[in-house]
């Protein structure tokens, strides 16, 4: 916090005899030191993020080309591109969001518009909070035993996508809930005053008003889902699939899993390093790009709401 001031008082300062109590030595020094330390911490984090991004871009940029984006892996994944993995990642995002978005919004609508403080509501809240804390690999176990084995989908796009959807649900609920809560009560009152029912009010007034914020929440959830690996390893991510999945019941390649495979179980780990860096960079572009769009859009919405 800065204060700028000009003073013409110094000329008079000598005449007075006033004194101020003594300040214990070291207090101000300590304050300055800690302040400097806190600045350094923040600086360190900025450098860390910048360093990681620069390092990965420098190593990965050379690999990126149209061929890399548009070709499947070749020669036992030691050459070629990541086309099926890119498409697979987007397919997984689509399936997971097709589940998590409507369910998340509906849950949020319930919590904000309908919920009374009763046992059912408290249980719903507790479940959502618990779900948010479930480790991603446990979602993987659940997806395997429920979607793949119990429901008989097998390891496939649908199983993996729904597993990711379950993981995204609490995030989506949180985003939609805060969006709905930020709709002013006046809007609702005005609608009720015109004789609208509660559902008409929600559908025609509240949801449209909250929709942009809900959408940014959705975008940010996509950022979370796109980079997840553990839930899809045994629910539908393919080690290698030359073709893009044409049905929900086929396995798909995904960028995060592809990185894991190349880096830990590939045919020649050292030789495929460039491809690994390239794949990492593609994943980062997708995840951080989505996130950045979400963050910027959210910032714009907030700015508009303030005005």
């Amino acid at each position: 916090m800065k204060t700028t001031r000009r003073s013409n008082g110094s000329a008079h300062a000598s005449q007075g005899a006033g004194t101020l109590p003594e300040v214990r030595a070291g207090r101000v020094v300590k304050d300055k030191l800690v302040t400097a330390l806190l600045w350094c911490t923040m600086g360190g984090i900025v450098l860390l993020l910048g360093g990681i991004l620069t390092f990965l871009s420098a190593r990965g940029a050379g690999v990126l080309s149209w061929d890399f984006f548009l070709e499947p892996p070749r020669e036992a994944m030691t050459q070629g591109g990541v086309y099926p993995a890119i498409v697979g990642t987007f397919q997984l995002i689509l399936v997971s969001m097709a589940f998590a978005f409507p369910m998340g919004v509906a849950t949020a609508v319930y919590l904000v518009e309908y919920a009374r403080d009763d046992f059912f509501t408290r249980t719903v809240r507790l479940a959502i909070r618990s779900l948010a804390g479930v480790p991603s690999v446990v979602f993987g176990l659940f997806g395997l035993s429920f979607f793949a084995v119990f429901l008989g989908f097998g390891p496939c796009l649908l199983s993996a996508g729904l597993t990711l959807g379950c993981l995204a649900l609490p995030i989506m609920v949180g985003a939609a809930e805060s969006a709905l809560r930020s709709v002013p009560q006046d809007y609702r009152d005005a609608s009720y005053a015109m004789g609208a029912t509660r559902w008409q009010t929600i559908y025609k007034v509240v949801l449209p008003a909250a929709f942009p914020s809900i959408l940014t929440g959705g975008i940010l959830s996509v950022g979370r889902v796109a980079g997840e690996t553990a839930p899809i390893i045994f629910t539908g991510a393919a080690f290698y699939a030359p073709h893009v999945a044409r049905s929900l019941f086929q396995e798909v390649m995904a960028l995060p899993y592809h990185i894991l495979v190349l880096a830990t179980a590939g045919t020649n780990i050292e030789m495929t390093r460039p491809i690994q860096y390239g794949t990492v960079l593609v994943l980062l572009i997708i995840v951080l790009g989505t996130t950045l769009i979400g963050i910027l859009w959210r910032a714009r919405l907030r700015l508009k709401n303030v005005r």
Partner: protein
Amino acid sequence: MPAATPKFLVRALNLHYGEHHALKNVEMDIAPKSVTAFIGPSGCGKSTFLRCLNRMNDFILGCRVEGEIKLDGMDIYAASTDVIALRRKVGMVFQRPNPFPSSIWENVAYGPRLHGIRNKTVLQEIVESSLKGAALWEEVQDKLHTPALALSGGQQQRLCIARAIAVEPEVLLMDEPTSALDPLGTARIEELVRELKERYTVVIVTHNMQQAARISDMTCFFLMGETIEMGPTQEIFTSPQDRRTEDYITGRFG
């Protein structure tokens, strides 16, 4: 009753918040060991001016102060002034009671501890005398280690006064200290203020003219960032010199 050497001497004080000219050419002498009240409609700059006296405005972004404020002849806005030391000498009590969320004892001991007093016995003495000074000792002596937030609003405000006087200031600034209190709490604070002037220079901002009339020796009327009139409280309320002062105290506006 202008004293020989004023505690505060303010000359040509101007304050801007960005474009807004919030205080215009304020000039004032504040006598030691007296109660000075600032009255005026809301937004007139009286609180802003009060916050200049212990440089609490330093935190406000884009706030610019020109002119001089001397405390015992020393320019408090000089570059060499230690703000920490200044605030120890010039204590402050706020509009809403704001005790820290800790025990009553911890609240009062906060300031002395900052200034390096660690000895429990000494601290205990300070806590006791400060609470007595704030007329709260009788009520809380048996529950010094209970949460301060469990006290009533009026008690919380007296605790804040105790906390402020625990660092042995010479001046107490009070920014509408009773505006969040009920009538009973207000009466206790007013009574206390009259006692406090025996030891401290008290400057109080109030929106309540009766309050100013009841407790202050000097009254200053602010309007649109200017000091319209200042004088002994009796005179201000019985024979104001300025038409605007008269309009305000007779309730014609504000």
